[in-house]
């Protein structure tokens, strides 16, 4: 049984009396100890679908259909209080913005310790001891002194380490990392991701790594779901997707980031156009206005999701090289 199993999840936004679907009928699962990447541009629904797992959707957002099963429990059927107890203890989250995700008026120590006390029921003294261990584990030197400091004493990368310590505090089975390195310097990104991957390995924690950078995925994730316009358009092992992308969007994502295994003279090719706007209905395949291979059928008929792919004309080795 997978740790997390999402089936046909649809999330909608109700605003001014109209309902807009942000996440369409997505299904995926996460195995214990596995790192799964959700890749896509802004607005592709990757964050919304993961917030749905946490039960932290904004008020205007609602799961309209589908199931989310965690460790055998149907999360959507849980009461608010049961869901609260699960947060932090079974599933925790690392957010995109380390600069604003910590409370500015409370000490780092108190913010880590409260999660330990809440989720593990430890005494204050033991929680403090545990917080020091956690800070050391995430690479914050001089942990005992830093415990008393406030977020403004920490740099962005250090704050993200603290966020990771908080996420680890309840010994969760799953960590959802929502673009954990997007706001950080490139040099810090690899450090943070290495740290998260190591922690998952050491603790046997599963992780959903949400990112828009397909380039970093192959190194950390075992499997990848590529999302576009609120749908999963391609999924498979990280290795396969990196080596042989079959969906033109996946291919576009890979072409738009520098790769070490390619000639440096090959220019980067950005994907033309803008990400699909959920408020404008697009008939057929949602990627067709931006796809270089679009034909009539792409404009008229949405492709079904089959064998880890939603595309009428999957790329092959020949077609990839022809463009």
């Amino acid at each position: 049984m997978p740790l997390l199993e999402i089936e046909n999840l649809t999330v909608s936004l109700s605003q001014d009396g109209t309902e807009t679907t942000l996440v369409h009928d997505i299904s995926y699962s996460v195995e214990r100890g596995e790192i799964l990447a959700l890749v896509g541009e802004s607005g592709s629904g990757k964050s919304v679908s993961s917030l749905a797992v946490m039960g932290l959707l904004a008020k205007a957002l609602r799961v309209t259909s589908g199931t989310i099963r965690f460790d055998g429990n149907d999360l959507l059927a849980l009461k608010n209080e049961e869901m609260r107890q699960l947060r932090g203890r079974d599933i925790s989250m690392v957010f995109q913005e380390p600069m604003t995700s910590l409370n500015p008026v409370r000490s780092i120590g108190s913010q880590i310790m409260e999660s330990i006390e809440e989720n593990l029921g430890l005494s204050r003294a033991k929680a403090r001891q545990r917080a020091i261990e956690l800070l050391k584990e995430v690479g914050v030197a001089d942990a005992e002194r830093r415990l008393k400091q406030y977020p403004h004493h920490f740099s962005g990368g250090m704050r993200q380490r603290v966020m990771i310590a908080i996420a680890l505090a309840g010994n969760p089975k799953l960590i959802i990392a929502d673009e954990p390195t997007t706001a950080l310097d490139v040099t810090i990104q690899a450090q943070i991701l290495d740290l998260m991957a190591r922690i998952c390995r050491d603790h046997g924690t599963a992780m959903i790594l949400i990112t828009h950078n397909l380039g970093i995925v192959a190194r950390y994730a075992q499997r990848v779901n590529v999302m576009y316009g609120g749908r999963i358009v391609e999924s498979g092992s990280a290795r396969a997707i990196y080596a042989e992308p079959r969906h033109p969007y996946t291919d576009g994502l890979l072409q738009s980031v520098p790769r070490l295994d390619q000639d440096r003279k090959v220019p980067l090719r950005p994907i033309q156009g803008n990400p699909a706007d959920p408020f404008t209905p697009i008939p057929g395949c949602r990627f067709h206005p931006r796809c270089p291979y679009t034909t009539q059928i792409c404009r008229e008929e949405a492709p079904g999701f089959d064998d880890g792919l939603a595309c009428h004309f999957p790329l092959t080795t020949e077609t990839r090289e022809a463009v």
Partner: protein
Amino acid sequence: MLAVSTLVFFMIRLVPGDPIAAMLADSGSPEAREALIRRLGLDQPLLVQFWKWFTGVLQGDFGASIYGSNQPVANILMTALPKTLSLAFLSFVIAIVIAVPAGIISATRKNSAADVGVSLFAFLGLSMPDFWLAIILIIIFAANLQWLPAIGYTPLAEGLWPWLSHLILPSIAIGTGFSAIIARMIRSSMLEVLQADYMRTAAAKGLTQHAMLIRHALPNALIPVVTVIGIAFALLISGAVVVENVFSIKGLGRVLIQGIQNRDYPVVQGAVLLVSAFFVLSNLVVDLLYAAIDPRIRYS
């Protein structure tokens, strides 16, 4: 304070009417008037009068009342001060006790019946003049129900209840408007804070709603509110001036008003100086509170 005291010194002398007329009415002969003026030093040039008063104040001598008993101003102020301070303190407590929960409830249940209720209360509280509310309270609780005394003041030394019972009504009269302002501030400030990223972090930790509000949202929401409380302290004092008269409490407000009516220059000067000292003090307290609630601010 230097500016305020200078301003008041000259302004009170610009106001039509003079103390001699107030004291002697029509009965005084011109000779008596002359004698009195000379005795009080009012015949000297204004700048000389100011210098005498000013150097006196620097040495802690506020002069003496020129009216009636000729009591030293310092004594008059010291008997009035505890009454006004008690009143201001209790009004403040009442305002906070009402405003903090009201503000939190209306922010967390935005647009609910409770929120509308709080907004309505805030609207009424701001619209009702202190003295009008004071009179209504007297009519209901003192005159009709006879639960509480209508007028006067008993020092705290004579027991908690006698002290409290005399102060409850005037404190409510002053505190209501004050609490309306604070409640609205807390509401808007809380609404902003509840949207913050760190609230989402707190939710992701699995904290209870209560812990999120009290430990995470409130301390952040209070930072801007503290400024307003400091500024609105002016309202407490000006409210006290009017309300003390309604309840016949011989506090600073009443001293001030009587002083002005009698053109009792030293008393008015001393009272205004004291009030301005409180403004400066409350601003200092606000600055110190900032450092206490916001760790990003440290005075070294």
